[in-house]
């Protein structure tokens, strides 16, 4: 541009002008507006309402005999439900909690002692541990054994040996009555 004075909307001296104020105010409004406009795009990638609607899973516990375990799907993940035997409950309680890698008493992990409900995803790198079927290896502590990297979980789903850093997660759930639970 040949005439450079024309290019500058500012006053010749470097004082702040009414124009500076208008420029900053307009830019601020535009920036806030753009941020509001961006939100629908970002939020649309969150779980949709039909996805959230199936985020709660109901389970009927009555067919599960003592010593049996079932796997249900909750939010696309396997959830282990084990009807624990008296021996398993005792084994889970009879542990020096302080010496566990992830210290947690059994009572903090169950609503009712005979029912253990945990997310069946190894806390190491996300494999599904073995131990649900009677023929599965259950690991050294009578719970679950992850074949990927050799983590051993006990009958409370707590990590006892191997690379996993934490116990199997307990999902939020509640008993609707004696034989029905709702996960989620």
């Amino acid at each position, binding site marked *: *541009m040949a*005439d450079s*004075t*024309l290019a500058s909307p500012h006053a010749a001296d470097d004082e702040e002008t009414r124009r500076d104020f208008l420029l900053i105010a307009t830019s601020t409004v535009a920036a806030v507006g753009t941020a509001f406009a961006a939100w629908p795009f970002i*939020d*649309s990638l969150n779980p*949709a309402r039909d996805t959230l609607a199936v985020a709660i899973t109901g389970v009927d516990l009555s067919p599960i005999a003592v010593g049996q375990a079932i796997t249900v799907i909750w939010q696309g993940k396997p959830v282990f439900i084990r009807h624990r035997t008296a021996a398993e409950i005792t084994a889970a309680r009879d542990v020096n909690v302080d010496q566990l890698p992830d210290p947690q008493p059994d009572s903090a992990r169950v609503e009712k002692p005979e029912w253990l409900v945990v997310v069946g995803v190894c806390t190491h790198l996300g494999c599904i541990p073995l131990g649900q079927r009677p023929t599965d290896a259950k690991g050294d502590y009578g719970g679950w054994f992850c074949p990927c990297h050799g983590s051993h979980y006990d009958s409370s789903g707590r990590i006892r040996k191997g690379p996993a850093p934490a116990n199997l997660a307990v999902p939020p759930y509640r008993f609707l009555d004696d034989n029905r639970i709702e996960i989620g």
Partner: protein
Amino acid sequence: MDAKTWKNPIIAWVDKRLPIFTMMQHDLVDYPTPRNLNYWWNFGSLAGIVLVIMIATGVVLAMHYTPHTQHAFESVERIMRDVNYGWLLRYLHMNGASMFFIVVYIHMFRGLYYGSYKAPRELLWQIGVIILLAMMATAFMGYVLPWGQMSYWGAKVITNLFSAIPLVGDAIVTWLWGGFAVDNPTLNRFFALHYLLPFLLFALVFLHLVALHTSKSNNPLGIDVKGPQDTIPFTPYYTVKDMFGLGAFLIFYLAFVFFAPNFFGEPDNYIKANPMQTPPHIVPEWYFLPFYAILRAITFDILFIPAKLLGVIAMFAAVLVLLFLPWLDRSAVRSARFRPIYKQVFWLFVADCILLGVVGGHPPEGVWVPLGQAATAFYFAFFLVIMPLLSFIERPRPLPSSISAAVTGKGVGISAHGVAE
């Protein structure tokens, strides 16, 4: 362009190796723009912004859409009901298509009125025509995706146009469909192309801008820039004006999105596609209506060419004739302001295009048939007869000596500084 010295050392380092900042300074800030551009010059930048909005909403919509005949309709309904703000994104995209055509048609009529297609801007204009064609293809395929009744039958009718081609027509249609009817393979490829074409559009828009910044902007007087006194820098003057225009445009656009989102649409498209039943009255989207009217205007054979083929040729010719406009109009004067006859014929042409749109929206019966034929005849006569003839018989008014002389009324050489303050 001159390499500028940048104060910020990081910007200076990057710019020395990749002069993007110099280019931005050159094309978005310093770009010398005629000082007399009116609001009709806003529509180019608006079209660019609408393209960006369409790509942004389209990419997000594609994340929720399923291109399968069994799921497409339901996935669009899921977007409307279940996806967070899905209704907003879809209505922005749907109405954005209409806005895109409104803005581009106005942009084209502006070019037509002010002679923006004449030397040295012929190629600039032609790239614009190619952009229009790419837009039309994109819009057509996008309309098929929701897999409603209008989607399906629109796809069927438009692809069947190609069956008019002698000898190989049927083979081409089968190839377009990927089967023996519009079906899942068709929907799949339309989705792929609907996603691809906007990016080609973006590249074409870039070429359009390179050509524009090479030959520089035309202006309402249609005379060449004669010196720095005729121009002002793009920033801040036209950035501010474009932003103001954008604000006004967004109010118009969002009024439809929020208060009349289905204004431009057809209720039949909320009925799932049924290959066994044609809706009683098929109409294309409004932006295709003038061309649809031209297609249907040809109801007679000429020599050995059947009416069906002639109609298709006429419809495509209606767009392609624009490519030859720079050579059909021989007048040395660009702006209609100084062309007393052309100025009136131009408005007749605008009215003719609107009339063709109205005709295209009615069933081809009764008075609409001869009316469509007359409007089609005028459409082509405007380009092929009136334009070349006017070049010779019209006496243009005298042109001002320069832009600054016309704008300031004081003649060349006035201090640009004095006017700006």
